[in-house]
């Protein structure tokens, strides 16, 4: 090892804070086992870590102090060797708390870099979300539901060590499995976690993603103004209020759609999104009233349509809607765009009905919603029971079905 290596860990603020820290710490501790050095830090601007906000941790591993300093003479790495994504819905891109503009999740990867995603999805489904890149990179999947080893509760599902084991396999010149194992023993004093790391090492699934493959969408960018261009006094000019909406089918004009400042998008905080069955809606206005982000547009026919570019996926609308399955939160990875559901429904009611049924049935709810407490434990048991190995070639042992080890199976 004659140069430094950089690893970026993209995670959801609060939900996965502890998990991300474990991973970046684990890397540096393992480096120290091999006589190398390193530093582990979080992207500071993300630190308020509101629920679900995409946030980043970094680990820099170097053979010696001087090489480490070379890498640290910048705010954060401009290119990384490995990007870890601990929630697959982040593959749609990130808008960090203190950033503007959507950044592809593979943005910092250099040619041949490794993108490690925790997911139950396959390569194709992930690549529908991950933006296409102009250099090839390697995509690796660590099988498992996104872990929520967060700030509030740390459920040790071994995702941390499974990712460490995976990294040892993908970038052996940075860290050996032996170093990772030694660091795990030292830091967590848990032989089962060592086993989990080793299993992940042997099981990782990878594919090389050629240039141009992936989500073709152009991520939007934000231009930072110079000091002469900026309005004085930290003033932001207001934008037009918005106005009536035109029904794309009947031409009827009415309702109201608030205008939205294009720079304040934040839908990448979302792990689930509401799916609305307009035929069940009784027009009670509760969703419109309660949405904390004022996402609902009033349509000319008096319905409520979510503006998906603003929805943060909090689930409040589902919780307040009095009609069962009129609003249903569905895993974000089931969607490839932010189209208006109301326009889809208007254009093809039959097709829309089938679409809603498919979205609701095929996509299980996520574990960290505010409404459904305890679901995570249920999911962990279910996942352990089916075994996480492809093809189920390995039986899950008794101790592996406990909450603590499901992710490591």
């Amino acid at each position: 090892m004659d140069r430094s290596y950089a690893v970026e860990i993209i995670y959801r603020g609060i939900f996965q804070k502890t998990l991300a820290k474990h991973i970046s710490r684990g890397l540096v501790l393992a480096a120290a086992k091999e006589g190398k050095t390193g530093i582990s830090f979080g992207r500071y601007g993300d630190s308020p870590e509101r629920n679900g906000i995409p946030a980043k941790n970094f680990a820099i591993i170097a053979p010696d102090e001087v090489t480490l300093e070379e890498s640290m003479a910048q705010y954060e790495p401009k290119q990384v060797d490995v990007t870890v994504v601990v929630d697959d819905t982040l593959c749609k891109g990130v808008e960090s708390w203190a950033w503007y503009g959507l950044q592809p999740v593979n943005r910092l990867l250099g040619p041949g870099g490794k993108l490690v995603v925790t997911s139950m999805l396959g390569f194709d489904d992930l690549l529908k979300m991950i933006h296409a890149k102009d250099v090839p990179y390697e995509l690796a999947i660590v099988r498992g539901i996104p872990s929520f080893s967060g700030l509030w509760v740390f459920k040790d599902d071994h995702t941390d060590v499974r990712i460490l084991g995976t990294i040892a396999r993908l970038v052996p010149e940075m860290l050996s499995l032996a170093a990772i194992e030694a660091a795990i023993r030292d830091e967590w004093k848990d032989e089962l976690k060592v086993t989990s790391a080793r299993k992940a090492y042997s099981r990782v699934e990878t594919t090389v993603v050629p240039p141009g493959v992936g989500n073709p969408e152009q991520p939007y960018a934000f231009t930072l103004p110079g000091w002469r261009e900026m309005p004085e006094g930290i003033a932001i000019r207001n934008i037009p209020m918005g106005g009536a909406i035109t029904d794309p089918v009947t031409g009827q004009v009415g309702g109201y759609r608030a205008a939205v400042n294009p720079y304040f998008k934040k839908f990448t905080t979302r792990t689930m999104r509401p799916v609305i069955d307009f035929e069940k809606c009784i027009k009670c206005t509760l969703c419109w009233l309660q949405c904390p982000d004022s996402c609902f547009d009033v349509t000319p026919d008096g319905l409520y349509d979510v503006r998906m570019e603003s929805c943060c996926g909090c689930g409040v609308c589902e919780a307040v809607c009095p009609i069962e399955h009129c609003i249903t939160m569905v895993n974000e990875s089931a969607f490839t765009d932010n189209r208006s559901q109301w326009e889809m429904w208007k254009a093809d009611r039959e097709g829309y009905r089938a679409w809603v049924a498919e979205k609701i049935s095929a996509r299980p709810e996520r574990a960290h919603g505010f409404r459904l407490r305890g679901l995570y434990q249920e999911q962990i048991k279910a996942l352990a029971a089916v075994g996480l190995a492809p093809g189920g070639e390995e039986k899950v042992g008794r101790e592996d079905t406990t909450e603590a080890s499901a992710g490591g199976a």
Partner: protein
Amino acid sequence: MATVQEPTVALGDKEELISGSEAIAVACKLADVDVITAYPIRPYDTVMQYVAKLVANGEMDCEYIVAESEHSQFEIVKHASAVGARVFVGSSGVGWMYAFEALTVTPALRIPMVAMVGNRALDDPGAFGVEHNDALAVRDLGWMLVWVDTAQEALDTALLAWRIAEDRRVFLPCAIGCDGAFLTHSQALVRIPAAERVREFLPPYNRGDLRLHPDNPITVAPQANEDWVMEIRKQNDAAMRRAPQVIREAYADFERIFGRRYGNPFFEEYETEDAEVVLLGMGTLSMPVKVAIRKMRKEGRKVGFVRLRWFRPFPTEALAACLGRFAAVGVIDRDYSFGSPYYSGVVANEVRTALYAAPQRPPVVGFICGLGGREVTVPNVREMTDYLYRAAGGERLVDTYWIGLRE
């Protein structure tokens, strides 16, 4: 050349991967601090969180008081110190400003207090990044001020700060400037000294005749009208004038006991021996500056760096003697003093003042860079060096340049 020279003998240290804030918290534990107050503000809150953890885990025994504001936080430790408790406190940015009234009265009461300032921009607009204006605001109040560069230096300097502040010759509060994010939030491998060694280095705090206690009946801070003020100020001044000697002794003892050598306590010199021009700055600036210097030296440009640690007391003569050796001096300020002489940063003005009476007065160019946590890049450092060579060549330059500003 490393910041800190490695000890030549193993001294029972253990190595841990901790952040700069955590290093200060560990120092609190090692110093066996009696009273700590907390009120959250980033980036300082990482210290209180870690101290809370140490207390909760039974690793540390202290009064941990969550105050209802920064103002109360500093008042609480002020009184605790008056009765003889070793104290720790801290804040950041506008939180530190909220405590300002308490900060102003502490030196006059000759209260040794160690505070960490997790340096942060003064809002608006809700910026969390490093800027030194928060800590520098107490520049003229009688506080000692020291800036650190690494997590290791943060731990060591905290131990030194108690030792210096609690010396009867000094008895002044001391604030440790820790750059937000770069230092407070990055985890590095830090050597943690054994508790016995710390006990050897740091004697118990003895407030002696000034201890507010029933056994020592005194009144502290009665109403002092106009007749008293100048004398009180002069006493503070005398204490501050005694501080440099105490600082020197403390660092010498530190080296003897822990084996880590800081050399000149007041400022660090990097590649200055044969340097033609030098840059000067405080805190974590040194990382990009040193890397840039290594690159520029390969190209034959003899650039050095002086990292100022102690800002109060200011090492006037020593610094002037050092800087007099070079053809030009560039001062990088991570702060700004609006409307000040030459429209400069605070440090540049202090450096110019220090040089005024010196026999050798190189031209001083001020650079405002990295405000609000903006990255100070290697190209930024090159740009500053270019200006320095022009100044060294006799060109009359603008007094202050803003580097890395979006025009």
